[in-house]
């Protein structure tokens, strides 16, 4: 009931000049694609992190056309967008903190793998501001880390 009231207050208040779900979602896609894609670097990641902060702020002002309670898919996409923003932030901030290239994603400013510092799981915690990034050790079982090489 508490949650129902919160959702109603956040999404069903009539607003002027609010943000559209689709508009924010497109901006989210573009900023992740351009700054945190397969090739990324510190500058692009920082830009993405800043943009995400802005999008999260604007998300509070999201405006829905649909205020009905029957199969309201606009509401579900709005809720999903909130979670996607959280997940995107976790991804971008962990990537920013990880000054190495591992797997298919390349930090062009740090092309080598650094097992010394980053053979770890990144853990992102939600805070009032940016997420806090911590690390957990990786248990290697069958497959040790290797180089990601193409066309060999």
């Amino acid at each position, binding site marked *: 009931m508490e949650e129902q009231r919160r959702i109603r207050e956040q999404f069903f208040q009539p607003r002027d000049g609010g943000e559209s779900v*689709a508009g924010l979602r497109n901006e989210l896609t573009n900023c992740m694609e351009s700054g945190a894609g397969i090739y990324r670097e510190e500058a692009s990641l920082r830009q993405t992190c800043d943009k995400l902060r802005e999008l999260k702020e604007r998300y509070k002002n999201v405006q*829905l*056309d*649909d205020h*009905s309670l*029957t*199969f309201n898919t606009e509401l579900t996409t709005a809720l999903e967008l909130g979670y996607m923003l959280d997940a995107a932030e976790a991804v971008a901030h962990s990537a920013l903190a990880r000054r190495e290239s591992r797997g298919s994603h390349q930090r062009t400013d740090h092309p080598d793998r650094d097992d010394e510092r980053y053979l770890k799981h990144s853990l992102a915690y939600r805070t009032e501001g940016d997420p806090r990034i911590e690390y957990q050790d990786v248990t290697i079982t069958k497959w040790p880390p290797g180089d990601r090489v193409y066309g060999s």
Partner: protein
Amino acid sequence: MAASNQDQANETISLEVFRYRPEEEDEPSWQSYEVPFRPDWVVLDALNYVKDEIDGTLSYRWSCRMGVCGSCGMMINGEPKLTCAAFLRDYYPKPIRIEPLTYFPVIRDLVINMDGFLDKLDSVQAWLIPKEEKPVSEGEYLQSPAELAKFKKFSMCINCMLCYSACPVVGHIPGFLGPAAIALAQRYNYDSRDGGADERAETLFSHEGIWECTFVGDCSHVCPKDVDPAGAIQRYKVKATTEWYKSLLLPRGRR
């Protein structure tokens, strides 16, 4: 190709969409939307354009956009189709009429209630009932390619319910098990690892099971995965009839 896309950038196509808003109205109505015509767009792309750019209140189900999840089935110009596989270019320049899957109760707009279908799937026990249980330590249940071939066709079903909307018998007799449920029951009946055929027969042989089918055949025609549920039902009728005569000749013999 790029040039022709440019040429068509300003062309539009209209969608005539079935609307039903139970909180506001008793009867459904039609609403038109003009969307850009792009030859590489499918109807689902056009609906997503409407939802994102024109009218956020339009409700419909969709997920994978590639003919795998089975959630975006709707009536397009009266034919049940996956909207992710229906290209605008096949209808252009005529308007496209979009309705919820027919014979199902409509919850809202293009969203139907599928509880009846799910209950039917349950009632035919469309899952593997192992012939013999064995502990995991004894390994897998092996199957030869020939054994796989016996049921593979029926296992392609994605539960999109297009076949129910193609079947007039489903429309007239809501209790009829229907094409997909029977085809999926057959998928397990034909599986060499399965031993549940007798349990399923209880439901399948019943009045609202296979006997209601009059082989209209449209279910197989609209199936996006070529499952051929109509064929599955006919084969079941043949089987049920032989079983019936057998049980007549050997009253206490089998079962």
